[in-house]
């Protein structure tokens, strides 16, 4: 599985220095922002690549985070543990990142919306984060059903929900659904996290 992932991320990036990772949620509160921050800390702290995280939604989470970390009023993008965070980013910020010296550009699309989904499809690697909890699994299943012909650059992943549901979706739709380990601290990458993220993101 890792070999294939590595190939996707590498092939999509041929001829340029940067890779884009789009993260989008099948419903609200599935952990997209947590995953984006976690992945950014892995890519900077472990893979040692300069990383930008773009908030491509209107939730305002990045501004709250800036407030918590004392970065409000400071220069934007603000920096936490080597990763750069772009609050309420748009086309201008994305262009800035693409022309900058970033190795990885992570885009947090929030929950799935029409335009967000189309934008996410342009990224090199796309991760759809869902919840497999019984009261939320329907939104995730809807995305899976609609995308039966998606290529291998699309990854399905979930933190919450039962193992039975995950296995059943894998079996019914013949797609791997990654179980994201429950990382309490998105700014701390343990050995187990490294193993998982290396498998999922490759490169």
């Amino acid at each position: 599985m890792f070999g294939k992932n590595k190939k996707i991320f590498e092939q999509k990036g041929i001829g340029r220095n940067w890779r884009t990772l789009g993260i989008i949620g099948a419903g609200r509160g599935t952990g997209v922002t947590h995953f984006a921050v976690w992945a950014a800390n892995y890519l900077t702290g472990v893979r040692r690549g300069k990383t930008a995280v773009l908030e491509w939604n209107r939730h305002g989470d990045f501004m709250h985070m800036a407030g918590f970390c004392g970065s409000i009023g400071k220069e934007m993008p603000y920096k936490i543990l080597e990763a750069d965070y772009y609050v309420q980013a748009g086309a201008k910020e994305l262009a800035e990142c693409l022309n900058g010296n970033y190795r990885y550009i992570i885009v947090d699309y929030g929950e799935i919306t029409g335009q967000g989904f189309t934008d996410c499809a342009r990224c090199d690697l796309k991760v759809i984060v869902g919840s497999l909890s019984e009261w939320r699994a329907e939104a995730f299943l809807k995305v899976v059903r609609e995308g039966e012909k998606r290529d291998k650059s699309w990854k399905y992943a979930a933190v919450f929900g039962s193992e039975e549901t995950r296995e059943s979706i894998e079996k019914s739709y013949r797609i791997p659904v990654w179980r994201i380990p429950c990382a309490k601290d998105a700014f701390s990458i343990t050995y187990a996290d490294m193993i998982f993220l290396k498998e999922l993101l490759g490169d």
Partner: protein
Amino acid sequence: MDARQFRKEALILKCIRHPGIPVVYDLEEDEDFCYLIEEFLEGDSLYALVSDMGHFSKAMTVRYGIQICHLVNILHSAKPTPILYLDLQPRNLLVCGNIVKLVDFDHAIHLDEAEYLTKSYGTVGCAAPEQYTGEDLNERTDIYAIGAVLYYMLTGKYPEKKPVYPRALIDRKLAKVIHTCLKEDPKERYDSAYQLGGELECIEEQMVKNREGAFGEDPGSSLTVAVAGAFPGAGATHIAISFAAYLWRRGISALYEEKNGSDAVRQMADCTGSGMDRYGVYRIHGLPMLPFYGDAAKLEPHPYHVVVRDCGTSMLNFSQEPADGYLLVCGSKPWQWKNTRDAVQFLGNLPGMAVIYNQFCGRLAVRLPGPAGEAECFLMPDSPNPFVHPKAVKQVYDEVFFSLAGRRPGGILQTCLAKIRRFLSRKA
């Protein structure tokens, strides 16, 4: 392997508790298969290490040999009945950190079962003659295999009927020990692994006295050597890797630590297909190498005693690095003199600093810029492969190591000298 044999292996492992022997957690069976759930061990087999790095040094062979004897002695001292391992070979010995672990107990039996054995198994090259002829097996059967493994570590080959001991690799005492282990008649071999281990310990002590061994490294102490280049391209990474590999080959638990943004370790790991362990350490050509991680990475502290830290080319970071010794790598070519002089002047009298003039070429180096203060200078000849040390390179590292270790209060060399002094005063 049948289920009975499988259960026997689990039972044998369950009755031994030692850090060098894997812990058995559970034994599961279903209709088709048996499952033995054992402790996960991270490391390379002696076979893989020798294949990767070539044969070991005398010091490393003796150090690992002592550990192997200790493990075999634990099995032979098992109560109520001693255990015979009967398949000791380089593939069944894992080096984890710098500790040897014994795995794969397929052929292990209790001593009282030995006389009822109808078939005997072993590995060609390591199995004792009595395993081929079907004669009685006992503790001395394992002693033969220890001798074969010692020979393998030293020469990279299994012993033949009349083993040859290359003079450059081996001294007479060690050759005699191996020769005694490999005697065809079991009665002529050592009586026990304990006795054999004692002989190897004497050789190690002698090596300490002769300044050629692993210096009886004190596991409680640690040594950090910071390495930096006077300018980009001076060869700091090459020297740091090469010095760590030199220490590792001497049987010292050494680690190369990258503390710069070169990403050299990851690139090497990608090339060689090495994976990291739970300390975040990659083993490349057998050498433990720690890449540069950011603050987000939370890994277990590594267990290595000597750290060679590659600080890149930032003189400011290098001078502020908390270390026991400092190696400044400079160029010895005329067009590198200015950079070299600037770096040496910047560092001034950094305590514990030594200067290495890299790729030293006698004909070109007409005038070397003298370092400030009392820093020692070493002239390093060109060596293309940092994992392999020609004699001239090894001699320079011998001097560098003794210079660094001797300088630190309570350092490895000083500890050993103190031990020797105590020993001599007792004798007197």
